[in-house]
Each structure stands twice: as C-alpha cells, then as structure tokens.
C-alpha cells in the first residue's frame, strides 16, 4: 500500500510526506490538554491552592489548541495542494498513455472501464490524498500518543482503559480478512446492477417495439433483487462484528471504575489520577470509532489506486519517433496468426495475401470468422502474434504509428458519430480542412442533399444527443470523413445494419468515389457489390479457404458459390439483408 502510494505521488512525494509529518505533530499536540487537565486537578486538590498557577494553566489550554489547529490546517493545505498536483500529473500521464495504447485496447469493455478510471477512480483518489490520508494519520496517532501518555502516568489504570479496546481490535482484525472478498463481491454486484439499468433504459424502445417488456422487466427485477439480497446479506454479516466492536470501545468505564476503586482503596492510586482516567477513558475509546470507518475507506481506495496504476502501466505499442515512411502502398500479409489478449486460441491462422497498390481486395465469409480482425491488424489495433504485415516492402512496425495511421482511411463496422455538428464530424478526417473541402467531400459521399435539408445544414448537431440520422446517412458521413482524409489506403468494414435500396445505391456511389485509385481492403456483406473487385478472399474459421475473382470463385463450387447462390435467391425473393 505504502509503495503504491509513493509510486502514485511521483514527483510530489516531498509535499505529501511533509503533510503526513505535520499531521503527526498535530496528533502529538492534541494530548497536551490532557496533561494540562491533570496538572489542574493536582492544583485543585493540593492544600495550598495557587490562584495564579491555576489561571495560567487554564489560559494555556486555548493556546495549545490554537497551535494544534494551525499545524493541522497547514497539513491539510499541503495535502490538498499535493493531491491536486498529483492528480493533475496522473490525469495528464493517463491521457498521454491512452494515445499510445494500441487502438484495440478500446473495445467496449475497456472503454467503459477506462472511463470509470479516468472519472470516478481518479476523483476518489483525490479525496483520499486530500482528506483521508491526513485524517487516517491523526486517527491512528492521536490514540497512539494518548495511550503512551496514559501508560506513562499510571500503568495499571492504562491497562484497564485499553483492555476492552484491545479485544475490540482483535475482533476487527479477525474479520478484516473476510472483508477484502466482501468488498469485491459488493463492487461486482454494484457494477452488474449498473449495467442492467443501462441495458434496460437504453434498450427500452427496442424492447417495447418487440413487445418484450414482460420478459426483460422480469430479468431486470431479478437482477435488482439479487443486488438487494447481496446488500442485505453483507449488512447482516458486518453488523455483528461492528456491534461488538462498538460495544467494547464505548464501555472502558465499566473496567476503569472497579479497577480504580480497588487501587484507590489500596492507596496505590491518587484521587486526581482516578478522576483523570474517568475523564479520559471514554474519550480514548471514542477515538477508535473512526478507525473502523477508515479501514473501510482504505479497502475501497486501495482498489481505486490499483486500477489507476494498472492503466498507468498498461502495455503500450512499441513506437518510434523517427522511422521510415512507406514509399509504396500495397498491403502484404505473410503467415499472420493472431489471438486476442488472454485467449489461448488463435483467431487467425497463417493468413497470406497481397493487395497490389491501387487495387481492391474484398474479404467475405460467415459472421465471426475474423474478417474485422484481419482488417484491424493493418492500422495496428493490435500487433500480430506470428508472421508480418507489410506496407510497401516495410513491416508496419517499423513506421512511426502516427505516420502509419495517416496513410490509412478507416470506415468502421460500428458507426460512431460524436456529439457535435455534422461539419465537425466530417472534419475529423482532416482537422485543418476548409469548409469548402468538407463540403466537397460530403458531396462526393452523397451526403450533400440530405444535409441541405436539415434545419441547420452543416451545423446541425448529431450523435447520441443530437438529431437521429438513418443508418445509411450516418454511414455516408463516415465515408465523407474518410474521403476528406484522402489517404492512399482505404479499409472499409461495411455495416451489417439493414439499409433500404435507395440508400444503398447512394452508399455504393459514395464508396465508388472513396475507393478510386486507392489500395482498398473491403469487408463486404452484399456479394453483389463486389462482383468487379480485383480479388476476393473467402475467410472461414480464421483461414483463407478460397481466393480469386468473382467469376472463378462461382465456378469453383465451394463456399463462395454457395454464399452467392443464397445471395441471389434472397434477392429474387425480394428480401435483402
């Protein structure tokens, strides 16, 4: 834990440590009033009561408190500043880190997780560094110093005051081992409930439209009940140890009084000392109340720290600042095999093909066979496991990543528009493009006529929170984006969404403009759109099983010819998918 903390603090170590140190000093100061009270009691009960001394002691009390608070405020000030600076560093570093992570890192699961890390977890850490860390130190050191004082004053009475508290601490330590697992379970139940809610609310329109409300509501209710039961069980399990803990730390008086009376009768204890312990005993016990709370915070915050550190030290793609630039733009796969992180099984096995510059190559095959994976290896979403991918004569790993990405236009299978204007969404392809260039690209992508009909034209807001565009329109915006980028290599993963014939024709025109004179890798779902491409690769279960031109493949009578027959008979029936 401490090592993680130092690692997190990085360059701001000194500030953090001084803040901790000041907190310890302030804890030490906080026991002085008890000593003063004892002196006061001694004075009050002594035969020659000295008025002056009494008043002096009384006046000293606020003075000590003032110094203590000044030190504490200074400690907090330092810890806040350290927290802001550390988290600023961490955020910047995470931001930079993210640009260096392989694109493939940002799949759906990781994107959600990364978002949680960047937002919630980092914020929790801020709270931890600014508040909980100094508070934990005072929570531990104030009772520590006070115990030392009590033992220095009277050994037997100190034993009486601490005995119950030691029992309480033993109970907690025995239980704390189980806690880690419980925190884990709790966080898991929590995240499951969150995803259920998101799924339910985001899917509600579809759920209703397909008249599935009863079934999915049942599932929702079941998940909620499960979450509630986990919570109830957890509360029950933690309630008893907590009650015992609280019982033991709040009742030291029950031991202090009898022991005190016994010692007092045997005249080994003065009245003043007895009174002091009667006063300090309950206060001492209450100081331990907060330790319980802080144990819980620490467990949760340690988890946050682990997650932040995990992202901070996630594996990045090896990259160079300097390197070669591609001279030609043909794509070659040589014996490429690949498996996703954590999977033993290869998704791709020994893929070999060559796309000469300026030609078009189509990947077809059943769903889930690895077409998207092949396409995404070219812009290095992930690095291949075996074999190599070349652009020109050069392995793609030898280009600086930025230069590699700059010569590839990507159109993804899942269309994503940012919550911004259409103009900005297209301009993403080339940030320095003028408005004329954007409009020209939109025109070539057949977007212009539907954009002109929109209320604010190019300045209409789209995306999640904006206007709803049809799948075909969104796709054309993505194509416009790629056209604007004007890169020599185009990778086009066609959407599988249903698109009406009218839109389809427009998309086809847009695609034709996009692929003109470029090296193209296209993943096609409509076989009729690729009858004229230079080569077709048929992928099945991660292997290329057939290759050639459309006519040759149809003649061959293999998988492709069966797919082709299915395709044209579907067209014949007037069903398009």
């Amino acid at each position: 834990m401490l090592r993680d903390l130092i690692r997190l603090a990085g360059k701001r170590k000194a500030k953090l440590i001084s803040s901790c140190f000041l907190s310890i000093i302030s804890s030490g100061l906080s026991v002085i009033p008890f000593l003063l009270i004892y002196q006061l009691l001694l004075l009050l009960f002594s035969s020659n009561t000295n008025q002056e001394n009494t008043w002096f002691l009384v006046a000293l009390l606020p003075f000590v408190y003032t110094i203590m608070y000044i030190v504490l405020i200074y400690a907090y000030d330092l810890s806040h500043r350290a927290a802001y600076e550390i988290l600023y560093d961490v955020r910047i570093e995470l931001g930079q880190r993210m640009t260096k992570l392989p694109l493939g890192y940002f799949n759906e699961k990781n994107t959600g997780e990364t978002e949680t890390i960047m937002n919630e977890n980092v914020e929790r850490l801020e709270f931890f560094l600014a508040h909980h860390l100094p508070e934990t130190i005072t929570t531990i050191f104030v009772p520590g110093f006070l115990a030392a004082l009590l033992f220095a004053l009277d050994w037997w009475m100190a034993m009486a005051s601490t005995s119950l508290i030691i029992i309480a601490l033993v109970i907690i330590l025995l239980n704390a081992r189980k806690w880690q697992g419980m925190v884990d379970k709790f966080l898991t139940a929590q995240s499951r409930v969150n995803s259920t809610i998101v799924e339910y609310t985001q899917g509600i329109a579809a759920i209703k439209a397909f008249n599935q409300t009863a079934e999915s509501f049942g599932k929702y209710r079941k998940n909620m009940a499960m979450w509630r039961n986990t919570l109830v069980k957890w509360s029950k399990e933690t309630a008893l140890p907590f009650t015992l803990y609280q019982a033991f730390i709040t009742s030291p008086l029950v031991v202090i009084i009898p022991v005190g009376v016994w010692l007092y009768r045997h005249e080994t204890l003065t009245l003043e000392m007895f009174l002091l312990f009667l006063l300090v005993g309950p206060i001492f016990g209450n100081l331990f109340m907060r330790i319980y709370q802080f144990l819980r915070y620490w467990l949760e915050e340690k988890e946050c720290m682990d997650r932040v550190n995990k992202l901070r030290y996630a594996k990045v793609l090896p990259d160079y600042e300097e390197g070669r630039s591609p001279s030609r733009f043909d794509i070659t796969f040589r014996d490429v095999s690949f498996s996703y992180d954590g999977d033993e099984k290869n998704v791709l096995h020994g893929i070999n093909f060559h796309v000469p510059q300026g030609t078009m190559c189509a990947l077809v095959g059943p769903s889930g066979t690895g077409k998207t994976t092949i396409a995404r290896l070219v812009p290095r979403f992930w690095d291949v496991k075996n074999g190599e991918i070349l652009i020109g004569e050069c392995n793609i790993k030898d280009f600086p990543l930025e230069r590699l990405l700059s010569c590839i236009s990507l159109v993804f299978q899942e269309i994503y528009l940012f919550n911004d204007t259409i103009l900005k969404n297209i301009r993403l392809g080339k940030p320095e493009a003028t408005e004329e260039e954007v409009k020209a690209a939109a025109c070539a992508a057949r977007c212009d006529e539907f954009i002109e009909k929109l209320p604010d034209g190019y300045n209409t807001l789209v995306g999640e929170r904006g206007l709803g565009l049809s799948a075909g329109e969104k796709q054309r915006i993505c194509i416009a984006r790629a056209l604007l980028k004007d890169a020599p290599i185009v990778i086009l993963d066609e959407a599988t969404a249903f698109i009406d014939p009218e839109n389809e024709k427009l998309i086809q025109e847009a695609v034709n403009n996009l692929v003109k004179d470029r090296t193209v890798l296209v993943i096609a779902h409509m076989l009729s759109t690729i009858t004229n491409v230079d080569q077709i690769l048929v992928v099945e279960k991660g292997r290329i099983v057939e290759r050639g031109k459309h006519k040759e493949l149809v003649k061959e009578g293999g998988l492709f010819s069966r797919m082709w027959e299915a395709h044209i008979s579907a067209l014949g029936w007037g069903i398009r998918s």
Partner: protein
Amino acid sequence: MGMFRESFFLAGNNKNRLKFIFSLMALRGIVKILPLLILYLVVLELLSARVDLGKILVLTAILATAFFVINIWDHYLALSAMKLGHKLSYDIRISLSDKLRKLSLGFFSRRPTG
C-alpha cells in the same frame, strides 16, 4: 424537515416503518445521555467526604447494563434501518422502471436515454 417529508413520500407503503425507525433514533439520543449521568454520580461519590464503595459498584453495574442495552438496541436499529434502506431503493427502482415500461414509444425518441 423537507428532507423528512420527501423520504416519507418516497417510502410509500413503508411509511410507518420509516416513522418507527426515526422515532427509535430520537429515543436513542436520549438514552445515550445515561452513561454520562452515571459517570457524574460516580465522580460526586468519589468527591464526597465518606466514599461509599458499594454505591459506586452498584452504579458501575447499572452502567454496564446500560451499555449492554444500548448496544443491542443499536444493533437492531442499524440492521432494520439498513434493511429498510435496501428495500426502499429496490422498490423505487422497480416502480420507476415499471413506469418506464408503460410510457409510450414516442417518449424515447424525444428524450435521450443516457
């Protein structure tokens, strides 16, 4: 006070249980003064001219009993408060999503779900 009214509104059918728990919490505050009172009596006895040890021990016994009762009380109060809390948030979520289920389809095309 507004917060109390709001929580009663949210509680719906659980209103009475919620009221019960709130009043138990108020009572608990009063009971917590008891140990301090006993401590005061003990100190008085110690300061008096002739210290009656028997009386002090009786007071200690009362104190121990008081702590015992308070802690059992606390335990069940915390348990039922937590249980009711979980039940409440469950009921609210279910009734909200039930409502969602009954809204018209058009509602969702106007309103972002996020």
